[in-house]
């Protein structure tokens, strides 16, 4: 049975899926160029701005649907969760920008990540988490979303191990400062992937869980 609400929900879904793609790209560009010692600020800034604008669009659309149709049950869970996920995707974009900006400003685009296996592993792990969160959303896969919790623990371990490594280093240079900040941004992105995972689980089961 076709409902008037379905048209709006479809538009909202398309927007949030699109945001996922843009956010994934922003993270990928930012981290890849950080690893390669290349400037990503302009490209990532553009993507981050797109995400910020789309978050407002999603929020406006969600409010419109709530006001017009007073959705309940799975409809309400989807709308509420999409608003939260849109915010999380916006944060992906913002942290991607922070990484690119820090890399350029503090490290002068040096290949800082090559000095640490831990840093490289953390970056790879976070990229995988971001892709998985977007994939779980598109496939409405609660189990895949739940698995983000385990990966997040691994990301945390890498982050804290890296901090430990930094605390023991005698050298204080621009790469150390850059990597300190970038690792923190990566850790925060990993956190947001679990928030996206929690929202996906809530959409599919109505269950409110914590993945952290």
């Amino acid at each position, binding site marked *: *049975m076709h*409902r008037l*609400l379905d048209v709006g929900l479809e538009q909202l879904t398309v927007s949030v899926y699109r945001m996922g793609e843009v956010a994934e790209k922003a993270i990928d560009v930012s981290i890849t160029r950080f690893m390669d010692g290349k400037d990503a600020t302009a490209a990532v800034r553009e993507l981050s701005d797109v995400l910020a604008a789309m978050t407002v669009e999603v929020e406006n659309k969600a409010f419109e649907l709530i006001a017009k149709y*007073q*959705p*309940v*049950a*799975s*409809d*309400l*869970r989807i709308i509420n969760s999409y608003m939260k996920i849109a915010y999380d995707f916006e944060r992906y974009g913002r942290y991607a920008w922070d990484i690119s900006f820090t890399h350029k400003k503090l490290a002068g685009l040096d290949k800082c990540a090559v000095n640490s296996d831990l840093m490289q592993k953390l970056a790879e792990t976070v990229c995988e988490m971001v892709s998985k969160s977007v994939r779980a959303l598109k496939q409405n896969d609660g189990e895949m979303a739940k698995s983000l919790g385990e990966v997040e623990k691994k990301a945390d371990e890498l982050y804290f191990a890296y901090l430990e490594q930094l605390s023991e280093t005698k050298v204080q240079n621009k790469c150390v400062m850059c990597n300190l900040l970038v690792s923190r941004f990566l850790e925060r992105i990993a956190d947001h992937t679990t928030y996206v995972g929690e929202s996906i689980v809530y959409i599919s089961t*109505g269950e409110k869980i914590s993945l952290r």
Partner: protein
Amino acid sequence: MQSFGLNAWFGTKQALKDINISIKANAVTAIIGPSGCGKSTFLRTLNRMHELVSGAKMSGQVLLDGKNIYASDVDAVMVRRRVGMVFQKPNPFPTMSIYGNVAAGLKLTGVKRGANLDEVVQRSLEQATLWDEVKGDLKKPGTSISGGQQQRLCIARAIALEPEVILMDEPCSALDPIATAKIEELIVSLKRVYTVVIVTHNMQQAARVSDFTAFMYLGQLVEYGETSAIFENPKNELTEKYITGKFG
């Protein structure tokens, strides 16, 4: 109130099938479901109004304070005094004043005119949040006030008999949004003193005013639980389809 194995028929057509429910005291319970699902019939079995319909019959038990209201030694009129009813369309007695409408039930049960009656009328109109609007017009006909006021007058008439339970069968369906809002506020305030059971087709109304919601379909109770849970995450797929409008 509780029902156990409650069945009801109109002639050979079974309208209720094995309804088992425990209605919480001092709370608002909403009964929702598509037309013909048995909502109103169920409501009418709770104060023995179902048996007033020609050819209607029922089986099972309805307990009020632990006593079966269908037991042979129970007076149906007394049941209806303890379990009041408010109908879809406001139905004040057309020949009676506002005062007379509220006092009507009491007079029928032997309460004489005087200070006590005045007190009950005032208290009932106050509880129905109508007193301030009509206190200077008590002698005017009950039908001279607006539709929303008439519905609150009918609620005052039910309250005057000091029932334990108030049943409401789509009490706002004939009212505009402002009058509806006033009745909804009233319903929520009434639960401090009474147990309220409301049948409504308006899903948002059920969500707004009730603490518990029961979803009925084809004469059966499909799901019953806290309203917040029913409207956020219903357990039954039929409930989900109905409240999200995916039915049919």
